[in-house]
C-alpha cells in the first residue's frame, strides 16, 4: 500500500514537473500539422488556380516591361541611333502577338527602326 502511494506521488510529481513540457510538445505538433495542412490546401486543391495566376503574373510583367521599353523608344524618336539600338534589343516582342495595342506599337517602332538602319549604315 505504502509503495503504491509512493509511486502515485512520484508519478504526480513527474506530471507537475514535466506537464508543461508535454503540453508544449503537443502544441508544437499541432502547430506544425496546421502549417502542413495549409501548405497541402494551397498546393494541391488550389494548385491549378495559383499556377494560372503565376502565369498571368509573368505575362503581365513581361508585357508591362515591354510597354515601358516601347515608351522609352517612343520618347527617343528624335534620336535615330538610340531608337535603332533600343528597338533591336527587343526580341521578346514577337512572343506576345495577342495584345493588339502592343503589337501595333511594336510593328510601328520596328518598322521605323528597320527603315532607319540602312540610312545609318
Amino acid at each position: 500500500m505504502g509503495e503504491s502511494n509512493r509511486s502515485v506521488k512520484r508519478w504526480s510529481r513527474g506530471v507537475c514537473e514535466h506537464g508543461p513540457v508535454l503540453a508544449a510538445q503537443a502544441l508544437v505538433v499541432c502547430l506544425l500539422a496546421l502549417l502542413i495542412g495549409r501548405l497541402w490546401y494551397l498546393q494541391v486543391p488550389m494548385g491549378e488556380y495559383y499556377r494560372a495566376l503565376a502565369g498571368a503574373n509573368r505575362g503581365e510583367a513581361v508585357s508591362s516591361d515591354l510597354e515601358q521599353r516601347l515608351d522609352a523608344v517612343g520618347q527617343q524618336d528624335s534620336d535615330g541611333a538610340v531608337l535603332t539600338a533600343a528597338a533591336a534589343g527587343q526580341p521578346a516582342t514577337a512572343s506576345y502577338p495577342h495584345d493588339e495595342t502592343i503589337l501595333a506599337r511594336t510593328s510601328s517602332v520596328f518598322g521605323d527602326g528597320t527603315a532607319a538602319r540602312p540610312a545609318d549604315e
Partner: protein
Amino acid sequence: MIRKARMSLRFAQAMRLPAPLPHVSQVAARMLPRHLDGVLLGAAVTLSMVGALLVWSATLPPTGHAGPTVYAWRHLGHLLLALPLCLALASLTRRALRAYTPVLFVAVTVALLLVLGPLGETVNGSRSWIALGDLRVQPAETAKIALILAVAAVLGRPRPRTPRPPASDVLISLGVAAVPIGLILLQPDLGSALVLTAIYLALLACSGAPLRWPLALLGCGAFTGLAVWQLGLLKDYQVARFTAFLDPHADPLGAGYNVNQALIAVGSGGLSGSGLFHGGQTSGKFVPEQHTDFVFSVAAEELGFAGGCAVIVLLGVVLLRILRVASRCDEVHGRLVCIGVAAWFCVQVFVNIGMTLGLTPVTGLPLPFVSYGGSAAVANFAALGLVMAVHAHNEERRSLEPAGTRG
C-alpha cells in the same frame, strides 16, 4: 653525467615547470563538449545548408546562372562563424552559464541603447541595426538569448523548500524582461517585441509560478493591444499589415502585395515544385524579401509540397529535440533555458511560415536557420549551444546514475 641529469630533474620538479605543450588536436578535443546531440545539431546544419541553396536561388540575377551569389556565400560564412560559437557554448558548465548572464544582459542593454543613438540605422521603418562600417548588427537577436538566460536565472533559482517561484521573483523577472522589450518597442520592432513577450510568457508558465500570473499578463497584453489600436498609436505600415492580413485582396498592389505574391508562389509549386533555380515567381522577383523573411515561398515554389514539408519536419525535429532535452533536465534553470529557446523558435517558425501561407500578419521575422541574416544565424546557433550545454549536463548525470534507476 647521471648525477647532472638527476639534479636537473629535481630542479624542474622543484620549480614546477609546466608539462610539454599539448597538440592542437588535444586542445580542440578538450574544448568540444563530451555529449553532443547529433540529431539536433544535424537537423539545424541541414536546415542551414538548405537555406543556402534557397538564398542562392532567391538572389540569382535575371540573366541566369553565374555560380553561387554573394548572398549564398555569406550565408555559408555565417554558418562557419556560428558553428564554433555553438560548440563553445555547448561546453559551458551550469555555473558558467549563470555567471555570464549578468554580463550578457548588460551588454545587450547597452547595444539596444546604442541602436536608438547615432550609431543606429533605420531599415524598413525600424531603427534596429547598428552600422559599423560595412558590418551591420541587429542586437534584438542577441536580446532573445539575454532575456532567456536572465529570466531563467531569476525564476529557476534553487529553492529547497518550494519549487514555485515566489511573487517577488515573478515581479523581478517581469522587470528584467521589460527592459529589452521596452527598448525594442522604441525602435519600433513589433515582431521581435512579440517574440520576446512570448518567450517570457512561456518561461513564466513553465517555471511553476501560479497560472494566474501568465493569465493576468495575457489579459493585460490583450487590453493594451486593444487600447493601442483604438487610440491609433500604431504606425501606418503596421495598420496596413493587419488590414492586409484580414483581407489580402482588398489592396493587391499595395498593402496586400507581399501576401498575394507569396500565396501565388507557394500555390504554384504543386506537389513536386518547379525545380531548384526554376521557380517563375522566384526568378521574376515577385515576392519581396524572398531571401530573408519570405524564404519559405522559394522552398514551396521550387521544391513543392514535398520540399516544403521536409523543411517543416526538420524544424519540428529541432523543436521536439529541444523539448526532449528540457523534459530530461533535473533542475529548473536548465529546463527553463530549453523552454525559452523552444518558445523563441516555435513562435518564429509559426509566424514566418504562417505569413507566407496567409495564416498570420506580415512581420519582419526570419525563419530560424534558413533565412539569410548574420545576426539571426549566430543567435540561433548560440541558442542551440545553450541547449546542448544542458543536454551535456543531463547525459553526464545519467552516466553517473546506476543503470536500474534511469527513467
